[in-house]
């Protein structure tokens, strides 16, 4: 089967889907006249025979019929193993001649053996990932390594469910391939995680921890509980550090450096920004002494993904949300949580202190530094210890997240009734005057916010996080 013959017959490898390799290869071969209709039918009968054998094995010979869904699953598993065999060939044409020569049963047997050997390879890879793991308090990272991946190895069934990725992996990778299935998925996941670990090991734990803490402050989140990718955040700051003429290993950026960076970048054309980003990634790789080709390709791919966000951040003047600066003296934050209510004694003392204080800013500071729960916050608003403009001064200290949580309390009916087409601005304009002072004060405050902030709060109100709170 020479190449010239193939091209004459119009065999088009583009028509082959890597996620459904065998069947799309056979269909394309039939279309191009490389196999006849009867050959295709014969191969399909051979696959059916494998399916029959698998049904008997699946039911341990006790049943000759199974529900269609179970049979469909077995078929997926068979085809996954056969695809694994096929993908080992350099070209579809060499694969096709091998298929015709060996027959489907042998292809399945070899594919299954390959899948099982990949599981063993993945186990070795997992040991390497574990030995290079990042010491972090990020829950998703730790639970993925401690529970999800071991569960995968415990539950993975190459015989009957080879295509299934039976693992509750939470930690998001910077360059995950979500189309991969079964052991292929785990293998690529572990390969990439190992590269991310190896990259992060070039930075001190203290630097990474500090960066993640600053990241949490910038986004007003408790970072250990969020699904964030450590490698991406570290790489991003390393890139900006090098852009500023600092060492790649220095992840600490000061606020004035970020301002300087934005000024420099805002003078560049989009194409210039792209070139600068690429040359900076090159310098980061060189400075960190990275020689592994796969790792270089991965870093480049993930680093280049930064470009649209970088352009947007420069244009929107939000670079400090991408290049994470040190938040030296963080404002006391309220991060509402359930289950952290104050005891009655502390609450009473706070009310007394607030009533004794006449300075609105000081009153706001007291509330922000002493209250941790939404319930306490609303109880304070209801406790008649704030007056007039003092509400505004307090609300001004709240971030979009906290305001969205309070907005959810006062707009609960609107959110429920118009879940699909909810408009924050519209809901505010229609809000009735309430008997409760703080509700009226909050409503007026929210209506006076800029369009951008209202939009940001609306987005939060529509997110799942918001719904859970």
């Amino acid at each position, binding site marked *: 089967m020479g190449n010239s013959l193939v091209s004459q017959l119009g065999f088009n490898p583009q028509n082959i889907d890597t996620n459904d390799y065998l069947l799309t290869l056979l269909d394309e071969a039939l279309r191009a006249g490389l196999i006849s209709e009867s050959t295709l039918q014969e191969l399909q009968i051979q696959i059916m025979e494998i399916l029959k054998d698998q049904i008997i094995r699946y039911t341990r010979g006790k*049943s000759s*019929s199974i*529900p269609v869904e179970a049979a469909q699953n077995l*078929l997926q598993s068979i085809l996954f193993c056969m695809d694994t065999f096929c993908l080992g060939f350099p070209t579809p044409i060499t694969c096709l001649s091998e298929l015709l020569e060996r027959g489907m049963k042998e292809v399945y047997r070899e594919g299954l053996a390959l899948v099982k050997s990949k599981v063993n390879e993945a186990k070795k890879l997992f040991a390497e990932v574990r030995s290079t793991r990042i010491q972090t308090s990020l829950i998703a990272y730790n639970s993925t390594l401690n529970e999800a991946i071991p569960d995968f190895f415990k539950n993975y069934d190459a015989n009957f469910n080879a295509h299934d990725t039976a693992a509750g992996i939470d930690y998001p990778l910077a360059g995950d391939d979500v189309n991969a299935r079964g052991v292929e998925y785990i293998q690529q996941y572990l390969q990439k995680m190992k590269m991310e670990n190896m990259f992060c090991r070039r930075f001190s734990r203290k630097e990474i921890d500090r960066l993640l803490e600053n990241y949490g402050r910038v986004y007003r989140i408790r970072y250990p509980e969020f699904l964030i990718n450590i490698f991406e955040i570290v790489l991003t700051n390393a890139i900006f550090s090098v852009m500023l003429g600092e060492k790649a290993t220095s992840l600490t950026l000061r606020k004035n450096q970020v301002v300087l960076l934005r000024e420099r970048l805002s003078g560049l054309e989009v194409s210039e920004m792209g070139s600068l980003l690429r040359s900076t990634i090159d310098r980061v790789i060189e400075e960190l002494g990275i020689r592994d080709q796969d790792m270089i390709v991965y870093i480049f791919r993930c680093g280049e993904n930064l470009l649209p966000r970088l352009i947007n951040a420069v244009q929107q003047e939000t670079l400090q949300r991408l290049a994470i600066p040190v938040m030296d003296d963080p404002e006391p934050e309220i991060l509402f949580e359930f289950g952290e209510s104050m005891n009655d004694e502390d609450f009473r003392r706070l009310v007394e202190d607030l009533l004794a204080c006449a300075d609105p800013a000081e009153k706001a500071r007291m509330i922000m530094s002493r209250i941790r729960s939404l319930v306490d916050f609303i109880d304070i608003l209801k406790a008649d210890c704030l007056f007039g403009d003092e509400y505004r001064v307090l609300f001004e200290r709240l971030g979009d997240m906290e305001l969205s949580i309070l907005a959810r309390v006062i707009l609960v009916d609107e959110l429920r009734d118009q879940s699909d087409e909810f408009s924050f601005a519209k809901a505010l304009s229609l809000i009735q005057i309430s008997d409760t002072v703080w509700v009226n004060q909050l409503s007026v405050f929210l209506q006076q916010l800029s369009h951008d902030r209202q939009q940001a709060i609306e987005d939060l109100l529509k997110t799942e996080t918001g719904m859970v709170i």
Partner: protein
Amino acid sequence: MADISRFIMPISRENAISIIISTNKLSQKHGMVLTEKDALQIIDARNKALKTTGRIEVDLRVINEIIRTFCKSPYINQANYADMTCELVEAFYYMKNETGDKIGDDDLIHIMRDYFDNRCFGSIELLTGRELEKLVDEIRFACYNDILDDR
């Protein structure tokens, strides 16, 4: 995702008829035989039942076993042989689904025969109603092994 229907080839009718007719050797001893027309009627009932219950079957072993087991029942005679076989085939796949595939083919057919003769006195309606409900409950309470031991 590959559609399973691409790989399911219908069983050849000639082959199916000859498998069913071959059971006459045994059933003749009990005074009953199936004709080719009966065999076709049973195959159609089986195909329809598989479709209705959303199941896929790899061979005709079940029909064969149902015929061999039930031709000895006192509630089946030549006059109702083909019709009863069709109904029992339909009942089998229905019960297979309802019991969540927890009972193997041979065991289920023997339980059906036991209940059919001794509890339902030849009523398939009672078999797929009252008795199946009890069976499902018993399975739920993990009494399946006891049922088999008692048989």
